[in-house]
């Protein structure tokens, strides 16, 4: 059987290959598009939006159903829901991102130290993480806020702390996997210092699972913040935040369901799109990298 010559494959770097595989996953791309739209929305409202209109009460206009002037209607204080939604996106996404970065930083340090040094250090650190893991995340966050008082910073801290153990484990396991590879020994064989081994060899290769975890983590954080705000321990009114919007709307949900459906849908969409991206990344990274 004669098979005609085809042009040789273009050489691709690993990152390009991963992106190529990610693109093939329809659901993951959908998640990416939705999430990008939310980000754009948050950016747009930061530049062009009128924050005052989102928090100033306007009683004569209260509880209006969706119309041309107010595409999502108004809440019980007459505020336009759409604009509160968009500002809510800004808050959820930025707090979510910031919290993730904090817990990623702290978790990575702990996980990296545990993985790289091993032995007693590993044992000690991981057992401390186990203690934190034993406490349900939301409960832990609530306890911290209750102890330190309300406020944006405390909220961030509380949520970040509850997420640290998960990161520490993922980072530790990623580092252990990489350290088992021969190329690390090759680096040690020419006398490479520890810092260079970590920066040049371990981190770039451990990145994959860490990025996946980070993406999934933002979703969890958004949920966490919304939950805290819902019970009144998070962001307090009148700041528009999806969780507190849910909380405010719950008393009237029987007759004005749009008050809770819309912030609820927003939370669901954000979390779902992030999960799809995270799963898509994991699949794109995972088995086929090992030829």
């Amino acid at each position, binding site marked *: 059987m004669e098979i005609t010559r085809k042009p040789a494959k273009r050489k691709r*770097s690993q990152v390009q290959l991963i992106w190529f595989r990610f693109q093939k996953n329809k659901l993951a791309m959908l998640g990416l598009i939705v999430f990008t739209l939310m980000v754009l929305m948050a950016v747009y409202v930061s530049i062009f939006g009128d924050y005052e209109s989102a928090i100033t009460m306007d009683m004569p206009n209260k509880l209006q159903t969706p119309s041309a002037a107010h595409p999502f209607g108004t809440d019980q204080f007459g505020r336009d829901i759409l604009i509160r939604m968009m500002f809510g996106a800004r808050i959820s996404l930025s707090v979510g991102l910031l919290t993730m970065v904090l817990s990623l930083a702290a978790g990575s340090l702990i996980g990296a130290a545990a993985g790289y040094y091993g032995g007693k250090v590993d044992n000690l650190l991981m057992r401390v993480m186990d203690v934190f893991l034993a406490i349900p995340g939301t409960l832990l966050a609530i306890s911290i806020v209750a102890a330190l008082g309300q406020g944006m910073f405390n909220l961030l801290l509380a949520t970040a702390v509850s997420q640290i153990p998960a990161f520490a484990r993922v980072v530790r396991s990623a580092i252990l996997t990489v350290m088992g590879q*021969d*190329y690390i020994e*090759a680096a040690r064989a*020419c006398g490479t210092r520890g810092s*260079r081994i970590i920066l*040049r*060899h371990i981190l*770039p290769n451990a990145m994959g699972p860490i990025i996946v975890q980070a993406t999934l983590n933002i979703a969890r954080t958004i949920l966490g913040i919304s939950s805290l705000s819902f019970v009144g321990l998070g962001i307090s009114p009148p700041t528009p935040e999806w969780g507190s919007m849910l909380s405010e709307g719950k008393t009237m949900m029987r007759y004005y369901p749009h008050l809770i459906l819309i912030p609820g849908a927003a939370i669901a969409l954000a979390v779902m799109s992030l999960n799809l991206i995270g799963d898509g990344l994991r699949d794109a990274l995972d088995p086929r*990298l090992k030829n």
Partner: protein
Amino acid sequence: MNTPLIQTRELKKYFKTPKGMLHAVDGVDLSIEAGSTLGVVGESGCGKSTLGRTILRLIEPTGGEVLYNGQNIASYSGKQMALIHKEMQIIFQDPFSSLNPRMSVRDIIAEPIRVCRLYHSKAEIYRQVDRLMDIVGLASRFENAYPHELDGGRRQRIGIARALAVEPKFVVCDEPVSALDVSIQAQILNLLMDLQDDMGLTYMFITHDLSVVKHISNEIAVMYLGQCVERVASARLFENPLHPYTQALLAAIPVPKLMPRKRSANIIKGEISNPIDPKPGCRFAPRCPLACPRCREETPRLLEAEKGHFVACMQYEGGIK
């Protein structure tokens, strides 16, 4: 008489396990002359890989000495080792895990040069990389390729280029061709032999494949459960293997020639015993067809049975009969 480049005296490496002390390398004496190749042969669990890494101090020895040019490097400090590193390098078995997947071929080979600061300007470093790629037979068009785009044979060439980048004198080759196809194995073996001739390298060639080691080694050491049981010039080992284990090993190799089947009698029975807290006595005794009660009580020492031929077996205590 020149000092051998590498010598080990009673080299030991023990690992602590929950079940006891694992004697991976247990009192090994070796010497390798500059420019020659010592083949270290044995099956899984014999400690040959651990031996190679312990000599390089990639693994810290538990006891004994490693002499490089007469100096005991087993007791060197970190600073002293930093000067020695570029004289001793290693080539790994697995062409997949031995290269950093995030670095291009050029960066992988350049990395040791950068770490050891052999050249400073980028241009000089890259020129050296080009030279090395040429020496190992890698086309320059692969400079910016990534490991996952290349096959096992080419990856192994990258590993060799990386090991040679710092201009070492001694290279430990840890099963460098075991993971490759037969026709590629032959290419890489020829390359290693040519490099040794051109650059005056000294090799410790670790493998489980006796047929491979015959071609490349001047001397062969056979290892069993952490100990060296026989050591002699390469050709002599095949002409006259003395230790029962060596004989069994040679008999077990399937020869690509049609022969009548008379195997069962020669096939060695049993499996290797536990390397954890080994009992005194010859470690091969449980499987040895010639074992006697004395073999189980006394540990045989590596003695010269005929000129240049060392064997650790009770049979040859008074020399060859």
